[in-house]
């Protein structure tokens, strides 16, 4: 069956609501409005206002309420409309959700899922175009995942809900309209393993989330030029599947990271550091990084495009590490 990423997320939510009475949805405009990105469209009608709870504009508080509800026996799925607004809830996430199990000596658990839209590319300018996945991936106690395909959008939530601890799911805004064929029933998703989306021998392109499509496009172009690039989708940003990464680079000996975050302090930097530690003797060239320009993302299309990773930039970076 053909499904969009948006519909896949919605089906995953519907399935969760059906399967477990403890699941409740909390977020701004997820009910009456139908969800800013229409992910939750129809769920209020189907499950009612007790289970699909529209929250007022108060990110810190409704995320904190999700934490409390998780502690006390529910399985809340909180939508923060976009990662941009999650800045207002970071204290609750870092000092609450991520820390409570450890700091309570293992007594409390916070089985909370936080979903948020992320990324740029829709000309919504500096305050609405952040990619802060790496900030979240820095925090012990969190698991962070980024579905980059429709299959992962469909399957990751169920796996996340089996965790007894907080999971943050990043959904890139550019992916919602993408469609894919999907088996029915959709296959289960393993959150622990990075996925090799395209096998290759000459270089490893490592990416995640919204940058997968441009990485794959780059691989196709490279193939035309006789370069066989492997493309790895991290899927789990915390923890990282080091084994898959090291194994790939041990085969190809060259790596390029593609990450929509700003370059300095990017997740790409962490992965590069990791490979430098774990695969130092395997590397035949410096690792390349294709990231966003270090600038608040501008509105004008041509400037926004110039600021973000592109297939061309990935091609150039792979050629550079091979040269």
């Amino acid at each position: 069956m053909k499904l969009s990423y948006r519909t896949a997320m919605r089906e995953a939510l519907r399935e969760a609501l059906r399967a477990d009475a403890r699941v409740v949805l909390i977020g701004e405009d997820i009910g009456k409005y139908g969800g800013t990105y229409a992910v939750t469209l129809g769920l209020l009608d189907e499950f009612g206002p007790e289970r699909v709870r529209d929250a007022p504009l108060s990110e810190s508080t409704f995320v904190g309420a999700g934490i409390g509800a998780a502690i006390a026996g529910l399985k809340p799925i909180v939508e923060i409309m976009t990662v941009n607004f999650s800045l207002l809830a970071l204290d609750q996430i870092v000092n609450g959700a991520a820390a409570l199990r450890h700091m309570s000596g293992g007594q409390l658990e916070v089985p909370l899922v936080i979903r948020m839209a992320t990324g740029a590319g829709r000309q919504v300018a500096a305050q609405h175009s952040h990619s802060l996945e790496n900030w979240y991936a820095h925090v012990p106690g969190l698991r962070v995942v980024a579905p980059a395909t429709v299959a992962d959008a469909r399957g990751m939530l169920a796996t996340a809900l089996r965790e007894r601890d907080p999971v943050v799911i990043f959904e890139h805004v550019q992916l919602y309209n993408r469609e894919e064929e999907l088996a029915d029933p959709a296959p289960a998703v393993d959150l622990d393993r990075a996925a090799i989306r395209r096998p290759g021998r000459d270089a490893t392109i490592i990416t995640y989330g919204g940058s997968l499509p441009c990485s794959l496009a780059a691989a196709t172009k490279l193939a035309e030029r006789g370069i066989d690039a492997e493309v790895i989708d991290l899927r789990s940003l915390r923890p990282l599947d080091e084994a898959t990464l090291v194994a790939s680079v041990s085969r190809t000996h060259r790596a390029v990271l593609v990450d929509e975050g700003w370059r300095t302090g990017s997740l790409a930097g962490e992965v590069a550091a990791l490979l430098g530690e774990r695969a130092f003797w395997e590397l035949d060239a410096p690792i390349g990084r294709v990231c966003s320009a270090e600038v608040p993302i501008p509105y004008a299309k041509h400037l926004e495009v110039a600021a973000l990773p592109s297939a061309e930039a990935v091609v150039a970076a792979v050629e550079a590490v091979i040269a």
Partner: protein
Amino acid sequence: MTPTRDQALAMLRSMIRIRRLEERCAEDYAAGKIRGFLHLYIGEEAIAAGIIPALAAKDAIVGTYREHGHALLRGVAAEQIMAEMYGKSGGCARGRGGSMHLFSREHRFYGGHAIVGGGLPISLGIALADKVRGTGAITCVFFGDGAVAEGEFHESMNLAALWKLPVLFVCENNQYAMGTALVREHAEPELYKLAASHRVGAERIDGMDVVAVAEAAGQAVERVRETAAPWFIECSTYRFRAHSMFDPELYRDKAEVELWKQRDPITLLVKRMAGVVTEADIAAIESGADDEIARACAFAEASPLEPVAELLRDVRASGEGT
């Protein structure tokens, strides 16, 4: 108060200029010339039209992402506004901000802020600077009913009251925060009472009645300037259009929208001034507005894109430290 003919014409012109500009924006959005988020003010024009002329040139303004009208009435040229929406270098933020981020330092128009509630603390600081520097200027900050639910709103009321900052808070209560109706957003839907709970002087007025707004604004601006203390005006209003261009408006009835449209601020004023303001007056204002907008769009169309080489310019003044 009954406005004089001249006053009425000025208010009418203000509202019509906004209305026409935004109708054009909607068209240009459909045509793909404007992209990203676009939030129209149509239906709410009486607020900007009543408040902004009451401010002095030295006063400062802070707005939201629904701020085209405020910028226009503040004196930012329609050319610059349209060029900004087109993403052109002639725009009032060189095309970097778009619809949500209009700025004009020259007019002390300090944004265009797209994080709900985010402009409030900034407005306090501007007022503090003017107070410390003894300029006699006040700061006027606009925000929606939804912003009042954010904790920052309360923090800002408290700090403004504690520090006695000359801020005029203008809450544009259009009954919805995106798709969330007032009573589903606020346990206390009479928002001015929330401001008053922090001992900030507060009132509620009919935001569809430009005359009432102008009157309240005049008094409030004077009061803030004299007392150097904050004041809060809640304007009851309604947006006639969708929240943004992506909104399917599932959350409200057509009938409700139609009801409010009967209180269209432009029509209300025209009716009130029947006999004083004529069809011909209106036609003249409309054609003036249309000319202005046509010129603005032509300018915007012709304005060049900012060179890509300038992408990193103005991250910091020094260029370093980016």
